[in-house]
């Protein structure tokens, strides 16, 4: 984990949230059904989720943010991606 607590360096973090396997995703189903009508065949298992991007000065906290607020672990999976240093610096 590249967390840099108190270093003054902001990390750019991306969180991907998607419905858990087995949870019906009506938006995904709708898109999956619409694509063949537009001539795109062979598309299966469309899942629609959320992309959250944050700049944080302690990236080690992001997991807990996901569990408490950014995702609902009962019905959603999440994935944290560290994108590297943000352009600005922490206030």
């Amino acid at each position, binding site marked *: 984990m590249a967390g840099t607590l108190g270093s003054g360096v902001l990390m750019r973090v991306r969180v991907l949230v998607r419905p858990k396997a087995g949870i019906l995703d009506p938006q995904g189903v709708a898109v999956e059904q619409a694509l063949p009508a537009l001539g795109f065949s062979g598309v299966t298992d469309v899942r629609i989720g959320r992309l959250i991007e944050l700049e944080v000065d302690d990236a080690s906290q992001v997991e807990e943010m996901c569990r408490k*607020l950014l995702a*609902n672990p*009962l019905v959603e999976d999440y994935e944290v991606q560290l994108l590297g240093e943000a352009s600005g610096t922490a206030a």
Partner: protein
Amino acid sequence: MKFGVLQFPGSCDEADAQLAAGRVGEAVLLWHRDRDLAGCDAIIVPGGFSYGDYLRAGAIARFSPMMEEVIAFARDGGLVLGICNGFQVLCEAGLLPGALLQNTNRRFTSRQVHLEVVSPDTPFTRACAPGELLSVPAKHGSGRYYAPDDQLDAMEAAGQIVVRYAPGECFNGSARDIAGVCNEAGNVFGLMPHPEHAVDALTGSTDGLRIFESMALAAGGAHV
């Protein structure tokens, strides 16, 4: 009997809940940033779009100072009713099992439905007969109740499934047609349909009044 109705930025049905509860007792609004439950005997978390339903319905409201007090109140056995967005808030807060997902029809849907009273012996349904059908409106975009199957089995066995949509009337895709559930202790109840919009024949039906009457009965027994 004194009801407290929570008010968040983005709440919509708080005045309706206050009017409905006011038919069986006193009812006051409680501002989300305050921490004083004002001596209320029961708390209603109303419908609407608290914090715009941004992120997930109910996810942000659940962290308000007043909700912290409500969580403590519920853990002490206090009566808490969550309606629609309030149900979503109570699930997010962990006071009720399960989660509410987007309707399978992907649309906000507003429809008068019949609710079958599955558990008539909770503090929220004791004025109802077993199997009684209540005509109540439902209106929401994310009302598909979900819990894992083994948990649903356990809830059924424990009488935690309080109301179901009548056969053929569940438009949101809820597991086992579930419209409302309570916690294990029975003092916290959440449902998607709106009993507070069914308290006057002039504007629809009076069947929803039974929920508030039940709460008054229960609180009377507990506090008088």
